[in-house]
């Protein structure tokens, strides 16, 4: 038997909890930002991660990069375990995974030239030969569609889209296998957004780059992702191929999410309004976390355990009691 290719990234049972205090000298509360998440991502694949504001998307990204500690769970990146006792150094991690942030201005040091910004990680990782560094900087600039001459300029001399290209060049300069993009285009306008999306997809094809794409813009997510994971309050509630998620959304939250997408050419499209209060990760509701807002909630949704995943297809599953009742014998 041929062993199935090991995924580039595998995350099992990831939890990220933060301790916060009520008032000064007050009681401590745990914010269960990420509460048991499994993810896999293969080389050359784009996984879209969507979900409500505050559901824990950025916390996952930060845990993957070692920027916040994982409370529990195992993260394996490129065959190495990067959580817990086996924690690797930030240096080694940087070679495998890099991040592109939402705001391209605040993530570039205004006092450094583009050359300094791009070659710093190379120097840090032991590329001592200046000519070699220069060559890599020029190569990366070319890759993101900018001329090598820009290396001597400063960040403020570039437009928002150009700066985001520079951030992408910096993220790619150590040739990582995974790039995490947390809202990479939401600060950009429509036409620059198109450039960056085209660029990321080109690089994914050319370099076999894996992308973890976090975005609230479902138009972008649909366009770019191979697979999509939908999160709600610290957990994944549905995941599947992009086609399944957009044509056969099965979890009531995913359906609400998709019906809420605004489209300029369909002005009358009124999103389904979810009632109910947005729950807090400090006090997640009992049962299915979505139950206070779910238009189809059943009595059994309001207590007990979080619903398990129901398999809906080869690569499609969702956590909802409604799905179980129909397919419980499958």
């Amino acid at each position, binding site marked *: 038997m041929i062993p199935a290719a090991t995924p580039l990234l595998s995350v099992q049972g990831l939890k990220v909890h*933060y301790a*916060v205090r*009520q008032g000064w000298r*007050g009681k401590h509360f745990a914010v269960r930002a990420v509460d048991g998440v499994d993810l896999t991502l293969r080389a050359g694949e784009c996984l879209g991660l969507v*979900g*409500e*504001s*505050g*559901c824990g998307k*950025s916390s996952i990204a930060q845990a993957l990069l070692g920027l916040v500690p994982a409370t529990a769970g195992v993260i394996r990146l490129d065959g190495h375990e990067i959580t817990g006792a086996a924690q690797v150094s930030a240096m080694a991690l940087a070679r495998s995974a890099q991040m592109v942030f939402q*705001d391209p201005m605040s993530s570039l040091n205004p006092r450094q030239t583009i050359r300094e910004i791009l070659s710093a990680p190379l120097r840090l990782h032991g590329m001592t030969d200046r000519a070699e560094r220069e060559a890599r900087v020029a190569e990366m600039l070319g890759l993101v569609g900018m001329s090598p001459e820009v290396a001597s300029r400063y960040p403020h001399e570039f*437009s*928002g*889209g*150009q700066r985001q290209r520079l951030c992408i060049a910096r993220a790619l300069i150590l040739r990582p296998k995974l790039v995490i993009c947390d*809202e990479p285009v*939401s*600060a950009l*306008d*429509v*036409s*620059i*957004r*198109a*450039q960056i*999306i*085209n660029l990321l*997809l080109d690089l994914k094809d050319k370099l076999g780059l894996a992308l973890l794409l976090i975005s*609230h*813009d*479902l*138009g*972008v997510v*649909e*366009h770019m992702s191979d697979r999509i994971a939908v999160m709600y309050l610290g957990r994944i509630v549905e995941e599947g191929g*992009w*086609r399944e998620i*957009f*044509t056969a959304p099965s979890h009531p*939250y995913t359906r*609400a*999410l998709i019906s*809420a*997408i*605004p*489209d*300029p*050419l369909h*002005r009358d*499209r*009124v*999103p389904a*309004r*979810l009632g109910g*209060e*947005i*729950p*807090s990760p*400090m*006090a997640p509701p009992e049962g299915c976390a979505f139950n206070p807002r779910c238009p189809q909630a059943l009595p059994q949704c309001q207590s007990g355990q979080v619903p398990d995943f129901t398999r809906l297809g080869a690569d499609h599953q969702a956590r909802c009691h409604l799905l179980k009742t129909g397919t419980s014998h499958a």
Partner: protein
Amino acid sequence: MTKAVLDVRNLAISLSDGAVRVPAVEGVDFTINRGEVFGLVGESGCGKSLCALALAGLLKAPMAVSGGQILLEGRDLAPLPPREMRRLRGDKVSMIFQEPMTALNPLMTVGDQIGEMFVLHRGLTPRAARLKAIEALEQVQVSSPERRINAYPHQLSGGMRQRVMIAIALACDPALLIADEPTTALDVTIQAEIVELVLELCRAKGTAVMMISHDLGLVARVCNRVAVMYAGQIVEQRSAEEIFTAPAHPYTRGLINALPRLGRRLERGQERLTEIGGVVPAIRDFPQGCRFAPRCTRATAECRAAPVAMTDLNEGGRVRCLHHV
């Protein structure tokens, strides 16, 4: 008397560089009526935020209003000194910013920041203001508000911070609310709810809203009228129904073509998005004639010769183009 809450006439904003004044925004005209939602869209750097800041009296040197009038309920704000503007801000005019992290004070709890509005503009005691702050957070659907008022901005998610901003902005029922990219940080269901919520609160009070956004879908849905800006000028101003379905200006058409449209991948596969070639000119390099000419596929010599004026469209609205569709 007009029912326009806001009447902006021939607004100009310039950058002063020593003795030289470089115009950044020119000839901007629009009105917003009571209870109306007016959308302002356009490429990054075209001057949307400058307009917003001018309306709120928040322009900072080297930028300043260099011409025109900003009539809020009939009173011209353009010549008011900063001290006067500070008194109006949060009371008559409020603003929700693009980046909540930079607009919120990192060293103050959100409760104190909301409460401050009531202390400043309504003369409440800190104790009464605190109760109002909890109410205001409840209004924007922040869960456990009595706990959240003790939180500092960095302890909240992006979306939560934006709600706090909204609570601050609406605390004193302003006549004009300026929302600069109010919901980029929010997921679409919350976006819909928040925008709906803001608009409901505004509609009930007759608040005029100016909404700046790169999210054309959102703008189409919630705005009555929309203006498209390019390089410091309004280039098209129409009703929200027409501007997206029958755009007249080549730039507006380009914007709509560049959108990753939902459902298109299912129909046609993952094709490349249509970019608008070229870049927006910097304010020092605005072309002589039509400012879009270097990037426009319909440009002629006539377009490049002299500045292009706004003209009326037969079907209503205005456009700044010699060869519009």
